[in-house]
């Protein structure tokens, strides 16, 4: 299985409806995830090469968080066609020694004098290039295709199981950061090069918002994401642009006018409620605004109320600890912090979108009351 280090949104292409996904993961999925695990550990012999935590081999990527960084479609593709999305560090290296021995593995390191290879048995070995008759890389994975080895149903079970691998749950406790008050730096929101930095179009594409959807841009600011959302949902859809500052809403309105869109409703909210209709939304995007909420718990509960069953909440924040991004620590959050604050409010962590390295983009789904 190739590692997800690149942005490859065609493969994000989950055709699974959020609701179907939720159902697959929760109710009947218990069975299929269980049988998927049995295949992973038994017939598929996946542990020979992949580890989950401290169990398994080291030839392929560690998988304990694979369920949040790869979509079901991408996982399925990796199982039936492992070469399709392979990253260079998993290309097959074929080394032939002067003694005529042929070794296959992945490269761990290389310079002009030597190459370090992890062989198929998982053992690292180092070769001086002078001692090799030939050395080549092949753009294919060492992992075999499971298309002929497992049935379609078994592959589906395996995918379902892999999607349940989402790392340790966040430590839920008292908030570890001090929320800000809304802060209006139009200059920052309009800054030079923001497109290159955030790749907003890639993000919106990756979210695969169906035409006709009803969505909200919570903390719409200058309307930077609002108009893109409005374009994505189309004329049959609707975007609520929500902000606590009238000045910002005015800016949003200006942006919307500039793009000649009329499927947007502006909502002046307050610090505790986004003032959105109940049970009406398919998706709520909170981009670079969550950290400014003075009362995040109340707002997120209200967001949950506003979402339809199976609706998604998307939170985008600058990544704490990344050398790019705002200098002020209060403007950044860790993935753990975001999860620890959103999940207790009644959301399931769905996945991470790796759009740009400087941001976390986390997708949550509304958890249904059991």
């Amino acid at each position, binding site marked *: 299985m190739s590692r997800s280090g690149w942005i490859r949104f065609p493969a994000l292409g989950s055709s699974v409806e959020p609701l179907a996904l939720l159902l697959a993961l929760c109710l009947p999925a218990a069975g299929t995830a269980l049988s998927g695990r049995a295949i992973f550990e038994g017939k598929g012999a996946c542990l020979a090469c992949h580890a989950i935590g401290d169990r398994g081999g080291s030839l392929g990527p560690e998988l304990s968080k694979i369920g949040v960084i790869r979509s079901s479609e991408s996982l399925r593709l990796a199982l039936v066609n492992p070469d399709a999305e392979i990253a260079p560090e998993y*290309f097959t290296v074929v080394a032939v020694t002067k003694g005529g021995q042929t070794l296959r593995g992945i490269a761990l390191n290389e310079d002009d004098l030597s190459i370090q290879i992890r062989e198929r048995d998982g053992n690292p070995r180092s070769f001086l290039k002078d001692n090799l008759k030939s050395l080549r890389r092949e753009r294919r994975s060492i992992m075999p295709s499971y298309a002929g080895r497992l049935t379609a149903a078994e592959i589906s079970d395996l995918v379902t199981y892999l999607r349940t691998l989402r790392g340790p749950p966040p430590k839920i406790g008292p908030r570890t950061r001090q929320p800000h008050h809304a802060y209006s730096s139009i200059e920052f929101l309009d800054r030079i090069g923001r*497109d*290159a930095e955030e790749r907003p179009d890639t993000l919106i594409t990756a979210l695969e918002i169906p035409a006709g959807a009803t969505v909200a841009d919570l903390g719409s600011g200058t309307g930077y994401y609002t108009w893109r959302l409005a374009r994505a949902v189309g004329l049959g859809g609707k975007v609520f642009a929500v902000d606590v500052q009238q000045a910002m809403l005015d800016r949003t309105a200006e942006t919307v006018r500039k793009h000649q869109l009329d499927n947007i409703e502006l909502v002046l909210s307050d610090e505790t409620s986004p003032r959105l209709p109940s049970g009406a939304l398919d998706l709520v995007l909170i981009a670079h605004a969550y950290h400014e909420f003075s009362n995040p718990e109340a707002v997120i509960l209200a967001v949950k109320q506003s979402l339809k069953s199976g609706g998604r909440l998307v939170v985008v924040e600058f990544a704490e600890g990344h050398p790019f*991004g705002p200098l002020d620590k209060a403007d950044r959050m860790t993935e753990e912090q975001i999860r620890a604050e959103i999940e207790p409010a009644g959301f399931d962590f769905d996945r991470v979108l790796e759009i740009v390295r400087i941001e976390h983009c986390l997708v949550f789904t509304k958890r249904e009351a059991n």
Partner: protein
Amino acid sequence: MTIRYVAALAGLVAAAAWNLSGQGLPISSDRLLKAADEPGNWLMYSHTYNSWRFSNLNEITTANVKNLRVKWLFQGRHIEKFETTPLVVNGIMYLTRPENAIYALDAATGRQMWMYEYRNPPRTFNCCGRVNRGLAISGNTLFMNTLDMHVVAVDARSGHEIWKTEMYDYTEAGGYAAPGAPLVVKDKLIVGMAGGERGVSGFLDAYDTKTGKRLWRFHTIPQPGEPNFGTWAGDSWKTGGVTTWNNGSYDPETNTLFWGTSNPWPDYNDDFRAGDNLYSCSVLALDPDTGKLKWFFQFTPHDLHDWDSTQIPILLETQFRGENRKALAWANRNGFYYLLDRTTGKFLTAKAFVKQTWAKGFDNNGRPELIPGNEPTPEGNDRVWPGVDGGTNWMSHSYSPLTRLLYIFAREEHRMFSKNEVPHPTTEPEANAIAAPTTIAQANAGAYDPAIGGAISRAVGMPEESWGKVIAVDPGTGNIKWEHRVLTPPWGGVMATAGNLVFGGTLEGMIFALNATTGERLWTFSSNGPVFASPISYTANGKQLISIPAGDLIVTFGLD
């Protein structure tokens, strides 16, 4: 072997009898002019004013280089890598360590004698690491540029600061910095600056070595009323970049200073800067006494690929079409090797030394005839060679008068160029919100910077599509005599020696010596630290040593 070669070698045997231990301080202007006569010392960034980075020392030869071994290491103990070229005077090495510290070491052992540390503010704005590339020396004084746009003069005997001059407000226009090494010409210190990934306005300065007083400033973008002012659309000249971040060369015969300039800003988006954008991507020929422009040659008019022309200018005499020429040899980041007449700036010839896709030829004045389809695009254009870091970059080339070959550590690289929207250039301080890469890994990845009108970091294609090569070029024709290929595009330069060797180091930290005549690899050492600088050679206790930075180490080799 030609007769000329034998004669030159015989001359060098005599040269080896010069003062091998190196004369001491003070360093006069005359000694700088004749730096080649002091092979035991390394008195300026490129060793000599012609920037050959050639060492006359010949104790280490093709025959005995296999016995070379590590003599000492200097531990930088810094998160940043070394990019410095040390100076050596009479057995004492002076080097800069990131960010702006100066160390004096016993060059025989690497033991520290004194240290001076210049403290930068917590936030400075160099594009590509908090690095420094070296010192200049005059009299008893060392000179260093700083990341916060100061020039400092430090007593080479004590490490005490003598003067400190602010060149410019380093926070202006998104950020100025001065990471390069300065150059002493007579009583003046020539200092360049960086910042071309922001909307800065470039210049080259001269300061009085005694007092630190600024004596002239040459604006690399013509100011209103000056010739060539009209080569920038609208107000784009105000924020056009065009910095001077590497070192230059000096021709005493014509009293001319040669210095290369950087790209125009924004790098990948030219929506607001129609025109040739002079004097970007050019070499400037200046009168060092006055800072007046004698001539210029623009290698890449209206650059769109960040192909800075900040390479080190190499001054040499060569045969061109049967005539002896006083030439300027320039292997450019745009992938072409150029030969100019250095007395007039006249274009003589150009030849690609790496794969290139953007120029089908040159007119008589050296202006490239462009091939369409090489422009950065919003979705990313991966059909452009060379890559954004160029066929070469700031690493030093070397010229050997013995082989009469120019050695270039070149980069064959396949990368993506993308163009993004950049609001009309302004000097909003918010452009500072994005920090420069601060680690080697980021520098290696070419971590992208959003303020430059494009994201350039995404490598594309197979690893085998990019590599490095040391090439030996006949300067008169640009023909490649031999090529020595290495695994990855390099960031280090090369040095040729009278032992008929070429030294250098790779990004993986393999330090090597090649046969200067054939390119055969004769010796290697695995330092395992990325080499981001160029080697030097000098003597300590009468023995020839080679020093080269690798990661945060300075590694020094010699024979027993």
